[in-house]
């Protein structure tokens, strides 16, 4: 068992805390510059978080953010930047919706099948980038960005009414999924709403992520390859295989991130299915420092900003623009990058100092011993 290291914990917490505090301060500066009360919006948003129906919205949204961010984090751990989570989850959600509308198995089979379709689609889509990287050396950043655009076009094609699309009014959908594929949620009454059942899947995935990374050979290889590809290769890890596997897993998890909404509420993929989860996932993975607990907090925080901010528009007597929350999210990303680097350097310096001090003490010790001997 590792010894509880106060300094390590301090360093881990300092980054996000400094980032958050400076993001809040900078947002206040923006508020002051536009002639508004610099603190009232925070109070209004915190007030929102106390309402149970807003809490339900936050939890539901956070579950999707969490899965998307885990997908990004798996890549980060391996030093891979999977920007394609966005395309992967949208394509996966669409394919799952199509499967759900055209398959009618009993629930205990239907739901696993749908999960497999989602994971498979996401993995295949990310796998394309993985294969390109290991065989042709194409940067996964470029490949996944392009795959996002291709996914958009592919979805546009596959949801045409002469392919798999079903037009409802002016909306293109994939048809309503069979009831056996609807994942039951926790209904808290008509005024509060329903927590998606797949919120628990997000939690499970978080646990699995931690176990795989920290308690398995595979996780060790992954982290080792991420830290230094050449060193890992020297110790017998097949780096190419690791890259491909990491991309596949990242894509598979990405494929799941649209499902809480799809199986819990929407039951169809349509023009109004949310986009952009993958990009928010990058923010969250950064803020959460790729740790399963950190990402959970970060996902809740961003979901809170999303869901509590609309109330700013209705605030009385003075309404605020809810875009304040968007500004804050942007500033958080900005502050996170700066503060993590600052904290890392500070930590390094402290370490160097400590090592230096220990060495000096040792030298002094030797010197005094010599004197005694002499």
């Amino acid at each position, binding site marked *: 068992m590792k010894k509880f290291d106060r300094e390590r914990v301090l360093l881990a917490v300092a980054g996000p805390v400094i980032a958050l505090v400076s993001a809040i301060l900078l947002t206040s500066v923006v508020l002051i510059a536009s002639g508004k009360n610099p603190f009232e919006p925070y109070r209004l948003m915190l007030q929102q978080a106390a309402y149970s*129906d807003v809490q339900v919205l936050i939890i539901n949204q956070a579950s999707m953010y969490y899965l998307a961010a885990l997908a990004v984090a798996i890549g980060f751990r391996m030093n891979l930047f999977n920007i394609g989570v966005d395309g992967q989850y949208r394509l996966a959600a669409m394919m799952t919706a199509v499967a759900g509308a055209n398959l009618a198995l009993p629930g205990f089979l239907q739901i696993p099948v749908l999960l497999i379709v989602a994971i498979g689609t996401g993995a295949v889509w990310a796998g394309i980038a993985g294969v390109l990287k290991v065989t042709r050396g194409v940067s996964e950043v470029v490949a996944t960005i392009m795959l996002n655009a291709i996914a958009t076009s592919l979805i546009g094609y596959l949801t045409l009414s002469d392919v798999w699309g079903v037009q409802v*009014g*002016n909306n293109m959908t994939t048809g309503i999924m069979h009831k056996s594929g609807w994942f039951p949620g926790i209904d808290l009454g008509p005024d509060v709403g329903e927590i998606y059942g797949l919120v628990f899947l997000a939690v499970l995935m978080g646990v699995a992520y931690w176990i795989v990374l920290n308690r398995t050979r595979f996780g060790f290889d992954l982290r080792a390859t991420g830290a230094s590809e050449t060193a890992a290769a020297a110790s017998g890890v097949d780096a190419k295989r690791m890259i491909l596997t990491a991309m596949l897993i990242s894509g598979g998890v990405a494929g799941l991130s649209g499902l809480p909404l799809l199986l819990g509420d929407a039951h169809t993929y349509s*023009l109004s299915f949310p986009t952009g989860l993958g990009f928010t996932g990058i923010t969250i993975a950064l803020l959460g420092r790729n740790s399963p607990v950190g990402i959970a907090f970060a996902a809740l925080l961003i979901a809170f900003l999303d869901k509590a901010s*609309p109330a700013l528009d*209705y605030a009385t*007597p003075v309404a605020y623009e809810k875009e304040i929350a*968007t500004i804050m999210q942007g500033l958080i990303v900005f502050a996170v990058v700066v503060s993590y680097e600052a904290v890392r350097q500070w930590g390094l310096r402290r370490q160097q100092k400590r090592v230096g001090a220990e060495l000096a003490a040792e030298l002094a010790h030797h010197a005094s011993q010599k004197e005694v001997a002499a």
Partner: protein
Amino acid sequence: MTVAVLALAAAGCGKSSSDSSGGSSESGKYSGKGIGLAYDIGGKGDQSFNDAAFAGFQKAEKEFKIGGRDVEPSDNESTADKVERLEQLAKAGYNPIIGVGFVYAPAVKEVAAKYPKVTFGIIDDSTVRAKNVADLVFHEEQASYLAGVAAAKATKKNHIGFIGGVDIPLIHKFEAGYVQGAKSVNPKIKVESQYLTQTAQEGGFSSPDKGENAATGQIDAGADVIYHAAGLSGQGVIKAAAAHRVWAIGVDSDQYKQSALAAYKQYILGSALKNVGGAVYELTKSVVEGKPLSGEVRGDLKSGGVGFADSNPRYQAMKDVVAAVDKARQDIVEGKVTVRTQ
């Protein structure tokens, strides 16, 4: 409990959710707080569809001396957030509450069932059927047919273009009507057709640069009249047309009269009108007068819900074009011509 608290937060004036439902009482006297207008992503400020809704909102606000609130959505949101938004408006006592755009359909359906005393409107969707919901839809293809006739008459090269904002069924209606109208004049006419993006989130309705590029491409290919159904992106289309001294046809509002486009207006042949503002105004009026509209309210050429704007004197000077458009209008109103929607 939560609801009451939330209602307090939203309304800020001690009402509980049970008694805050505004609306017209038996005597017909309006007791709501005003109009609630909810946009979709990239809504307000598009100089087109959404701003037309806002214009109707302002007109009604002023004329009936009632309040109003228009709200925009946030990114990454799903129907649950739209439901929340409409509910907050309903709890705050707004009546009518109008969802601008078909993506609001599931949300309107859900919230309308919870607030039977409030009148809801949904623009561009006719799938929600309830006693307290008015489906405000339009025969866009009819106005587009007139645009097609005008384009086919005005072109010198028998080559025209269409630019749609986003590749979705709603915009396909504009293209279908336009192509049919143009072919009714000249079956051999060449029509370029292009959609800027696959999804609205990519900015097909809100990127003038995309519109300008697409229009320049079509003009280079030989088109000399270009019709756009692309919201704010259409500004780029009109700009490109003016730069190459060819015709552009506007959409939704009379774009000849828009101040943002004043520099290019002499190249705006006309505009296919879609009276979204009128629909918002009429629905509000009906609620204020105590006889709320309900069911499908479809604007067509006959009712004036759609039309073709002819403000440009250069257009009016082309008598044969004007005559052909008038004739087509007559034929559609009399039912001699049925315009396709796909």
